[in-house]
């Protein structure tokens, strides 16, 4: 009985592995391969090989301007999300208060609400507060809202390992409230902060759905610009840009794996 259960479980894992390879890894391979095509339109398999579309990407003004927009938005929103995440995680990990559950759900809700809904809602809010033309500001606010749940969760789970008694011990030894946090708690939650920051950055840098709603004409992100480019033009430049983004994202995760380990993403 248990044996059958175990064996069927193993079978399921094998099937899953195959599905993941086919439907997730394969498209990445196709994108990477077709970005090196020598033809002027996207085909797979490519008729010949060249790096001309990478050169084209580096020479395109639209790639660079939207790339820098994306970087600025990702850096600023990640920084704010990390700061908010640390503050909120500390409160949630240390205190029991009335409305704690509601607060938790409110902050974590962007994890379960579809991006389209969040994007549409934020667009409406920006119209309401008349910031609809300040695209960069809207994007930073929107990305911060959506990425804070990630930083909060990972900081929170790393804080679970640091008992309140550590802070109290530091205080009894002469550390003020602030230096007790800085000297004793902060070093313990660095892995959570790094993991949360990388997820937040990657999410912000790759997001299309929410950004599509919030991008004004002069403030478009790279993924949004890629989308519209693919819609109207057949040239393979977007494939080259996409490939670069895949590589950057993979490099990020490799960095986490090497520095703090991927298990920081595990739930508490």
């Amino acid at each position: 009985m248990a044996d059958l259960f175990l064996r069927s479980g193993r079978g399921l894992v094998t099937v899953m592995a195959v599905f993941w390879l086919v439907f997730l890894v394969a498209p990445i391979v196709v994108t990477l391969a077709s970005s090196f095509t020598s033809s002027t339109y996207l085909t797979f398999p490519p008729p010949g090989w060249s790096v001309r579309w990478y050169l084209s990407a580096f020479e395109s003004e639209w790639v660079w301007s939207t790339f820098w927009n994306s970087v600025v938005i990702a850096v600023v929103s990640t920084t704010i999300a990390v700061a908010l995440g640390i503050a909120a995680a500390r409160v949630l990990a240390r205190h029991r208060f009335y409305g704690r559950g509601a607060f938790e759900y409110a902050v974590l809700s962007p994890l379960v609400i579809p991006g389209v809904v969040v994007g549409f809602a934020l667009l409406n809010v920006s119209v309401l507060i008349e910031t609809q033309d300040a695209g960069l500001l809207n994007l930073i606010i929107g990305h911060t809202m959506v990425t804070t749940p990630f930083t909060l969760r990972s900081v929170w789970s790393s804080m679970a390992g640091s008992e309140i008694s550590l802070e109290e011990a530091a205080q009894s030894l002469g550390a003020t409230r602030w230096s007790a946090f800085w000297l004793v708690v902060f070093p313990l939650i660095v892995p959570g902060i790094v993991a949360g920051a990388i997820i937040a950055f990657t999410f912000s840098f790759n997001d299309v759905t929410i950004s599509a709603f919030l991008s004004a004409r002069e403030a478009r992100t790279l993924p949004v610009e890629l989308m519209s480019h693919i819609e109207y033009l057949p040239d393979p430049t977007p494939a080259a840009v996409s490939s670069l983004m895949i590589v950057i994202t993979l490099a990020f995760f490799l960095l986490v794996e090497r520095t703090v380990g991927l298990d920081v993403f595990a739930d508490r």
Partner: protein
Amino acid sequence: MSDVEVSGVSKRYDDLWAVKRVSFTAPAGSFTSLLGPSGCGKTTTLRLIAGFAALDEGEVRIGGKPVDALPPWRRNLGVVFQNYALFPFMTVFDNVAFGLRRRRVPRGETAARVAEAIDLVGLPDLAGRYPRQLSGGQQQRVALARALVIRPEVLLLDEPLSNLDAKLRAEMRFELKRIQRETGVTSIFVTHDQEEALTLSDQIVVMNLGTVAGAAAPKSIWEQPESAYVADFLGVENLFPGTVGDGAEDDGTVAVSVSEGSVTLDVAAARPAEAAVVLGIRSGDIKMWKVDSKRALDGPNELAGTVREFTYVGSAVVYQVDCAALPRPLIATVQEEFAVGESVRLHLPPGAIKLLRPDAPAGGSGARP
């Protein structure tokens, strides 16, 4: 060294009094234990002294100075936590040096004092290790060294031995006593273990439902507990409510009739103010013979009983004996062996029976749900 005066201290969490008007004094250089079951308010009392929580009523004075307005980092107290609370990413040296660095002690002096503290707690050559590389007993010693190196006015210990196994706990008990004697630091020790409290303390403060149920030196609290609650917590197995008779005795004894029983026992004690008392006798003080024993009586207070059950504890045998004259079975610890169902004669020496004050229902406070 400083004394600690806790006067009329109360702490409320929502509508629950965690401690209610607790008062005691820990004399300078003494070792005081706060003893009681979980939820009795002993840890809360310690946290109020340390400044980790703000008190709602009363005052704590250390060395004569009120400390309630001071945050924990200005009280100069050493605290040892139940889980040790060692900083996991710091070496033993850095853990112990933490308090000295906060005080901006010069580097050379820091090194010397850390070495001295590590030496005091008997941790040779482990200064470079991390807490996770140490055993529970070693972590305990580091926590002690870290708390003592700052030369605190008072050392607060929150059940520091409860996470150790029995053998190590016995060993650390001696170590704790040695270290306290060598440093002479005023110590307040929270425990639920009566044996720990008895062996370590100069003074035991027994707590119940957020209040002090009794405070005395170990010997006097062992020999004459103040109340039935204190006696119960200090392992007096047999407790029977009773009423002191009116008859005037002139031989230094009083006659007490056992409630819901059919016997009057002579107790070698002065007549108490109240007639309602609780009779207490330790199982080891009860004598027990076979029913056909020709042995003469030592005095009054002989009962007949039947052995209901026994447990062998190595050095002796603990018997549960049904007595027709008593409302509940008697617990007796003796060397001799008896069989289950055997009829026996029991003797309760008048000098071994304690007259105890019955506890007011629920102690008048700490109304726990």
